[in-house]
């Protein structure tokens, strides 16, 4: 129990002294997760919206599959990315293994189905509302997707934050493809795993609280920014 208070104390001191190592790995965590989020959103928002808009033969199965992919085990994603980018793998020549880029790729794979699934769900109701109008106005597929994403942007916040949360807290995949190399690919979660392995719970918890504080900050800023312009119903 006292470990938890030690952890809070550790988090406090890490933050107060702005321990340079902490700053480095926190920034790397943010950089990796935010980049992965941006890439994943660029794929998942249009994809999820398109799935809400388009009827086709195997639509239900496709959606069920996308939903199932939210359960992609990070370790397996890590392994597959590792195998693909390993020296002896097909993309080995790129030399991306054990770099932040590889970590971003793994995270994109992990969070894209999550963001796309939530997006699909959020866009379904809006599409039901807009359906007749957009069909009547002879919009193209791309215009429909664009209109829905734009008008539903505040609803998509949750999708994006879910993706970010999953990315910033994830450890299984980035441990494998990033390698947790000090000063190169170490991020908050891999550092936490390392300290846990050493039995240094106070430090591990301290880093964990820093991570949670970071996630909270991102969430609050996002909510605050998206609230500045206040049209819509609520």
């Amino acid at each position, binding site marked *: 129990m006292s470990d938890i208070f030690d952890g809070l104390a550790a988090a406090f001191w890490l933050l107060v002294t702005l321990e340079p190592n902490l700053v480095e790995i926190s920034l790397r965590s943010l950089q990796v997760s935010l980049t992965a989020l941006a890439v994943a959103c660029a794929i998942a928002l249009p994809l999820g919206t398109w799935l809400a808009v388009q009827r086709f033969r195997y639509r239900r199965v496709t959606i069920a599959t996308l939903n199932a992919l939210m359960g992609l085990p990070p370790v397996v994603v890590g392994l597959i990315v590792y195998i693909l980018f390993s020296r002896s793998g097909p993309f080995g020549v790129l030399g991306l293994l054990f770099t932040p880029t590889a970590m971003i790729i793994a995270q994109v794979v992990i969070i894209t189905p999550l963001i796309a699934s939530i997006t699909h769900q959020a866009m379904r109701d809006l599409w039901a*509302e*807009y359906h*007749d*109008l957009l069909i*009547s106005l002879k919009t193209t597929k791309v215009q429909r997707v664009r*209109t829905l994403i734009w*008008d539903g942007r505040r609803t998509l916040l949750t999708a994006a934050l879910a993706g970010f949360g999953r990315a910033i807290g994830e450890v299984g995949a980035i441990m494998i493809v990033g390698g947790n190399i000090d000063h190169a690919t170490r991020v908050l979660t891999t550092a936490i795993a390392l300290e846990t392995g050493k039995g240094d719970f106070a430090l591990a918890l301290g880093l964990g609280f820093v991570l949670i504080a970071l996630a909270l900050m991102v969430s609050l800023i996002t909510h605050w920014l998206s609230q500045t312009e206040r*049209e*819509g119903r609520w």
Partner: protein
Amino acid sequence: MVSPVLPLKVRGVSVRRGARHLLGPIDLTIEGTGLTMVLGPNGSGKTTLLKVMHGLERPSEGKISYGLARAEAERRQAYVFQTPIVLRRSVQQNLAYPLELIGRPRDEIRRRAGEWAERIGLGGALSSPATRLSGGEKQKLALARALIRKPELLFLDEPCANLDGRSTRAIEEMLLEARAAGTRIVMATHDIAQARRLATDAILLINGAVHETGEAPGFFDAPVTSETKSFLKGDIIL
């Protein structure tokens, strides 16, 4: 000056949803200039017929054809829904939307959106969120948004249901003006007086089937069947 979208031909069209037979079989031709009024009791299939003609609902049987290829023909139409659909945007952006879709220049869009907002009495509410408008204001907005692209074929589903007397009159003037400018109109209404004022010809739907059709003065003044007579008096028995 008849639009090349016409004639709109409805041939043997039926609509079924699940086990329910909603409409048809219906044969109709919309051509020339004018305003065809679709009348009928609640649930008789007016909305369904309008949507099928506009290509929004697919008929279970039969065919709809236009004077032009379908894609081109659909581009020249507009539809105002019974329950107004407003985009979760400002009044200005709602009016601008159909023009943005077809890539009109920015200042033209701004100008025309402004003009139309004035015409429907929302000139002062350009930047208000459209979702907060009153029922009647939403309906007027939806109508202006439909007219802004100058459609050649216009479907109106009870466009004046929530409007006050003056707005109704203003809208009717707009419709007459659009008609004069070459827009062919098909409209559903429950307001028999309005139907009389506007229609060049009328269709009475009962239980999804065309019960009687005719040129305007005759249809209203000397209907053939007794059902039509009592419907026009406001007391049809289903």
